[in-house]
């Protein structure tokens, strides 16, 4: 396990080489693959939640988060520890006016209360000393100003782990647990609320996102689904070129997921305000809790609408519209093929009607057919009176039967035909 100092040192240095900058720019900045959706969701969240016109972007990097703001007339100062990143950002900026400063995120090289809002994308996630970071960030924003940044959700890990009966850390790979380069800060709604309160800030919003972003934005509810892992990423990549798929993805993220809790997805956007208003913070936490409760009781549209409000009433119609496009249906079916999605079936029926839900859940039925036959092949020989009838000269000749038997048995179980013809 890496120490916090290791991680901070590693992360602070990680983006200093120009190769790293170039690779980062092509991976994250350009609207390729699911970056397109990620950029749309994140930038919209920033734009909607920032206040005022004087903005500081901490860990500005390539300028992904704030160049478009600067272009639209915001007065932007970007701060980064990596000169190579700043150089790249300057090139990227071209004519767009933006002030760029070299500096550390825990000691921003700017006057106190000199900005209306602070934004920082994909930065706090790397730093275990996030509370210390927030202290300096709170300093530079004027009273009533905002801080907008994203974090990885511990609540998400905890919720998924609870559903699976394991520990949150069990969901992570060995590398994620041990390699300082792979370190990611994971915190929950409560952690954020406590830290905010202690700095005299309030929590304005916590907005979950990254349900269908793939890549490094794992949605652990999808584990063991057909949308998990590199194959899921492959499907999601088509959002870059398929407008209807992109618009469906945007709908899912912005209209549905955004209204749920920090348990819903692996990432959420934090919106803090420099205002001492504990009631506001409590309200946000209460909303989180109510959503959690709605899902714990086997979510139905009715109960969700009671929490989310009238927006939820628009979901069925809009969803049905999106599902007219076949790849959208398949994408949703891939999501719902997660074992964790089984208990969402009543909600899906509420949203789309029973026949459409049955079609979407068809994959789960097919998966059960495969599993059933596979389980049979694993066990049938052990239930015979002499299971070793298949061992010939110490080699298990029975295992070679599995291939043909799989097809033969699927023929009778599923394809309704004579075996193997």
């Amino acid at each position, binding site marked *: 396990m890496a120490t916090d100092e290791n991680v901070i040192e590693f992360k602070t240095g990680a983006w200093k080489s120009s190769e790293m900058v170039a690779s980062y720019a092509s991976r994250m900045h350009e609207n390729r*693959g699911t970056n397109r959706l990620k950029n749309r969701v994140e930038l919209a969240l920033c734009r909607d939640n920032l206040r005022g016109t004087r903005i500081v972007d901490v860990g500005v990097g390539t300028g992904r988060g704030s160049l478009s703001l600067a272009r639209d007339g915001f007065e932007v100062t970007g701060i980064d520890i990596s000169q190579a990143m700043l150089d790249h950002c300057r090139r990227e900026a071209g004519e767009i006016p933006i002030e760029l400063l070299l500096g550390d995120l825990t000691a921003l090289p700017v006057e106190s209360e000199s900005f209306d809002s602070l934004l920082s994308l994909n930065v706090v996630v790397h730093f275990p000393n996030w509370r210390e970071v927030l202290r300096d960030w709170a300093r530079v924003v004027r009273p009533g100003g905002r801080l907008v940044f994203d974090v990885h959700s511990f609540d998400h890990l905890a919720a998924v782990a609870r559903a699976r009966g394991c520990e949150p850390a069990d969901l992570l790979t060995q590398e994620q647990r041990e390699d300082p380069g792979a370190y990611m800060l994971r915190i929950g709604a409560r952690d954020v609320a406590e830290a905010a309160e202690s700095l005299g800030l309030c929590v304005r919003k916590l907005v979950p996102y990254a349900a269908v972003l793939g890549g490094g934005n794992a949605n652990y509810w999808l584990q063991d689904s*057909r949308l998990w*892992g*590199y*194959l899921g*990423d*492959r*499907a999601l*990549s*088509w*959002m*870059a070129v*398929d407008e209807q798929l992109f618009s469906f993805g945007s709908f899912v993220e912005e209209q549905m997921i955004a209204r749920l809790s920090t348990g819903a997805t692996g990432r959420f956007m934090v919106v803090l305000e420099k205002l001492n208003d504990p009631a506001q913070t409590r309200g946000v936490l209460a909303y989180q809790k109510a959503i959690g409760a709605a899902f714990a009781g086997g979510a139905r549209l009715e109960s969700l609408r009671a929490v989310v409000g009238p927006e939820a009433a628009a979901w069925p119609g809009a969803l049905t519209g999106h599902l007219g496009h*076949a*790849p959208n*249906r*398949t*994408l949703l*079916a*891939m999501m719902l*093929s997660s074992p964790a999605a089984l208990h969402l079936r009543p909600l899906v029926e509420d949203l789309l009607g029973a026949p459409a839900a049955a079609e979407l859940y068809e*994959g789960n039925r*097919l998966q059960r057919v*495969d599993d*059933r*036959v*596979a*389980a*049979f092949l*694993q*066990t*049938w020989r052990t*239930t*015979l*009176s*002499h299971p070793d009838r*298949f061992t*010939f*000269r*110490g080699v298990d*000749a*029975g*295992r*070679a*039967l*599995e*291939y*043909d*038997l*799989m*097809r*033969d*048995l*699927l*023929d*009778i*179980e599923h*394809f309704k*035909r004579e*075996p193997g013809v």
Partner: protein
Amino acid sequence: MGAIVSLLWLKNREVVRQYLARVPSMLYVIGPTEPYRQYAAFGRVESLHALLSPQLQTSIAEDAAARAAAVASDLSAAGWTGAAADLRSDRATVTRTVTARLEERLRESMLLIAALDSAHERDGIDVVALNEDVMPAGKTAALWGRARGVPSVTISHSAILGRLYTVHREFNADRAVVFGRRGGLPYAEMGVDPACLAASGNPAWDAYAALPSQRGTVRSELAARYGIGANEFLVVFATTWSARFTAFCDADAYASTLRAVLRAVRDLRARGVPIRLVVKDRPTEDGGAVVVAALCKEEGLETGVIYARGETERFVVAADTVVSVDSNISVEAMLAGVPAINLWTPMGWLNGPFFDAEDGVLEAAPEKLAAAIAMTLGDANLRGLLTATAARRLPEFAAAPGTAAVRAAELLVRSHANAAAQSRGYVWEELSRPRRIVDKGAQATYFLNPRNELLQMLAHEPRVVLDVGCGGGATGAELKRVYPKAVVHGVELSGEAAAYAVARLDRVLQENVETMDFAGAGFAPGSIDVVFFPDVLEHLYDPWNLLRRVKPFLAPDAQVLASIPNVRNLWLLGELFKGRWDYVEEGLLDVTHIRFFTRKSVEELFVQTGYRIARWGANYDPRVPTVTAPTDALLNVEIYGLTMKDVSMRDLEEFRTIQFLVDAAPA
């Protein structure tokens, strides 16, 4: 010599040839040996199953029958509910399904195991190469290998772009050759050690190395054969099929996707786009022509459709667009520089997806297929973009064509149990590589150990010694230790060896002795009284001339002490009889040998150049057995498959010799 077993499909047999070229071995194949006839140049080729005597085959068949019967009786026994309880089908149907071909399948596996055992006993199997370690034969062989400690290598037969489901989701071999990085992803996900995987391209696609540059010729040849008009676009559609190894499989995919293509082509033709459609069916799809014709008729496409089952590469290269359904043929199109369209289906995504948005493969759902085809045919920008993108992505899918077989063979060699074979390269690589003393065990001996058997032939106290091919100078140093007054001049071509020798000898000439000027090098006529040629003469282009040229510099009492490999060696004759003449790094057929000698021709070498041979000696070959018999005995010898009559002891002596030792004097 060991053996390799190949269960590879014929399209991959080049891999075997490449392996044999590196590791001369006996080859066992499944099925007829005929397609491997030419490989006999590297070693015997035999059919694996021919090793089983009819008796053994019968007894195994009986054994299999008995086992199958016992299983069937277990299954029908009243008490058996077993795992079938979870299945939906009734128990009788399950029992019937499981037992239907049980005996035959079991027999096949058992026969294969027995045959592998026989081969292993006879020749020692170094490695098993197979094509699918999940299919019955491949899996049996891989499991057999695991049980016997024989490494197996599976060579993918597809780029593995989709999900590995059910029976495909296992890894039974020890190593796998995949086409590209993509093909390794599912294995990595299964936890297979990346060191066991090699992304080597598809040996069966090596033709694409050259074919795209012949596009014009291929196209006109096909045009002439099928009467394709110059204005017609050639659209190739590769049919798909339902493998039924997962419930995620559209049993009707063959017809429904073909219909989608036929409709698209029909629509485009109606809009005046002249398209000639090639329906490329699977080679195994018997009766496909009839089905396709019927479907064409139903969809109103009675003309302008070519039905083909072979020549895939040529059609792909000649095509304007290749359409397929989650198929490797899209990768072939990438290789050929032809735009590829993947017909989108929900099952395709559920079992994949096979392509991502940046692979340069266009995806189109059935209703958008006509538009997609039209775009790839008519929109030059899009064509360019697709093919450029695909070319950039290609290495992900398949390593560059042309060397896949060689690279796959390398993995086989690496898997080879025998470590000695592992370091071995091609003969030509040896030739072009300077010998290194320090890092090569065998050659360190060659260069750094004194040739005592030659030193023992010294008949007088040496004064001026010329050691030709002195290597690291060990022989000269030993000589100087015994005769400190002797002056030793070494000649050595290898700079590295010469550098060693400098410290040991009085003088080292780093030169080619064939062109060396003895007078120029300071030798006085009649001054040299010992010349060593330790395994040197056979490396020379003109040893005769060298012997003649050196003679004037020899003293009257001079000894020329040489060792020379013997090609009339019985082991070597046995090899030759088997059709082998394998150059090796060192030994009788050292790859750098230029001349070959028998006792008779050694004698002639010296006599014809003005010497007489005073004494003969020999180093013997441990591989050739010794025989004790009276000196005048005439023996019948049977060895290495050779039968020889009336062989004299003198002949046997020569047969056993690996190097002749010669003590010659100027005549």
